[in-house]
């Protein structure tokens, strides 16, 4: 409802100042280059980020599932640890690591004779830097989901395959990955939604810059609603985000059903 009005800071104090302006907010929204850019950035995050998160967390889960001794349990703890930490705190730490002059990362690169990388200064590299940070935090939870799924695969399948002479690579491709289908689906949906709502990392590290190149839809909504006090406009933005999330989720569920039907 709010998204159809021109409510702003004066409207907060005096309700009679609020006018019903129909879909004007939405019209302006799709003419606003900043909004279009933030949608583009969010698509970039999703396209690069989702496959990366899935590949990394599944890979690590497979590796950790390899053994059961205390070393592997220790690694499980280590990989999980980043995901419980405070986003703001780690963003501040990574901001320091990414510092072009004093940061550790460029120092390491210098050590191996590579030129300095402008981690947060270049529009495209800045996006990738933020993805790396988010990936670092996301691995833990998703890895645990994959691990739980891996432990649910009956051992008998592997034994049967071994008797049939399948090597370990074939077993991975033909048994493990298909059996992880549900976990993969779950992780894909949650990661996708997570990337669409990407907020704290760009807020703390770049405030959407340089040149709005790291602005996400969620950050756009925050800036308009709470920094510029254009509540109606921001609410319209949040409705667009909501529709995108619902659509994406529905498409995912469709795809999942189709896949299952094909296998029947």
């Amino acid at each position: 409802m709010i998204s159809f009005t021109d409510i702003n800071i004066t409207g907060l104090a005096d309700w009679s100042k609020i006018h019903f302006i129909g879909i004007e907010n939405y019209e302006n929204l799709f003419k606003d280059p900043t909004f279009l850019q933030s949608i583009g950035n969010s698509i970039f995050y999703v396209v690069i980020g989702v496959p990366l998160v899935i590949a990394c967390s599944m890979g690590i889960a497979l590796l950790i599932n390899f053994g059961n001794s205390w070393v592997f349990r220790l690694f499980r703890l280590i990989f999980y640890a980043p995901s419980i930490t405070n986003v703001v705190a780690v963003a501040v730490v990574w901001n320091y690591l990414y510092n072009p002059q004093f940061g550790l990362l460029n120092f390491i690169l210098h050590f191996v004779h590579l030129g300095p990388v402008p981690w947060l200064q270049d529009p495209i590299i800045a996006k990738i830097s933020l993805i790396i940070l988010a990936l670092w935090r996301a691995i833990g939870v998703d890895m645990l989901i994959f691990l739980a799924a891996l432990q649910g695969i009956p051992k008998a399948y592997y034994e049967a395959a071994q008797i049939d002479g399948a090597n370990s690579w074939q077993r991975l491709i033909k048994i493990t990955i298909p059996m992880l289908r549900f976990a993969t689906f779950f992780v894909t949906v949650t990661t996708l939604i997570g990337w669409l709502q990407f907020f704290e990392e760009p807020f703390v590290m770049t405030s959407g810059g340089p040149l709005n190149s790291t602005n996400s839809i969620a950050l756009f909504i925050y800036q308009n609603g709470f920094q510029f006090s254009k509540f109606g406009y921001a609410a319209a933005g949040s409705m667009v985000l909501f529709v995108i999330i619902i659509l994406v989720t529905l498409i995912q569920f469709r795809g999942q059903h189709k896949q299952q039907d094909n296998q029947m």
Partner: protein
Amino acid sequence: MNESIQHKKLSKLIVLIILSVGGFFMVLPFIWMLLSSVKTDMEILQIPPTVWPKSFTLDNFINLFTQMDFLIYLKNTIIIVLFSFIGLFLNAMAGYGFAKYKFKGKNSLFYLVLATMMIPGQVTMIPVYLMLNMAHLTNTLLGIALPGMVGAFGIFLFRQFMSTISDEIIEAARLDGCSEFYIFWKIILPVSRPVLAVQGILTFIAGWNSFIWPLIIANDQKYYTLSVGLALLKGQHASNYALQMAGSAFMVVPIVIVFLALQKYILQGFNVSGMK
């Protein structure tokens, strides 16, 4: 046979090496944070950076509390955590209601609760802000804590667990003349300890880390939480990395300690929530 055992050992070694390299990069930011937080301002701006601090100093941590308002932020954060524990209790009550009582429209009400899980936070952010503003709760601690107190996921988890408690116990207690609240307090809560532990830890972490609501609601620095204070610190002391690292360490280390102490329950919690 001997060959296959050797083969297995070799692949295990390779796996361990890959994991070690990955693990090193996972903990590197933590280690660098801790090392940097005890360096002096001078040392931290040196090129090339020193790996091991030359002189240990706790000045950065002391500065956080004397020059910055971290004591106030800490107090606010603790208050919010306490509020969210009250919320946890309400979640448990709601879960019990959905699990064990029969009333009209129970199922549709429960689906309504579940549906709220689907809606992203940004969509409700502005309406909730305007509502709080109408109730004059913006810029108060209550306003920060209120929206996050009850959550669909918590209710759902409690309901799932509490439906497995047998009805006979509750019936027997009723026959003995126990009040409903007494049953909830003395029977249901103790039995639900596993879920309570998981939810308690998650609640603590969420409260400690809460960022976006305090940021929106609190205009006044005296209502800032640690996260918001840290973001402010980053803006104000952009080049004092030692101070920033100390602030980050102060936020991260307690969580890591809680996590290490209770990791058994947290990892178990994934199995509980996985059983749904």
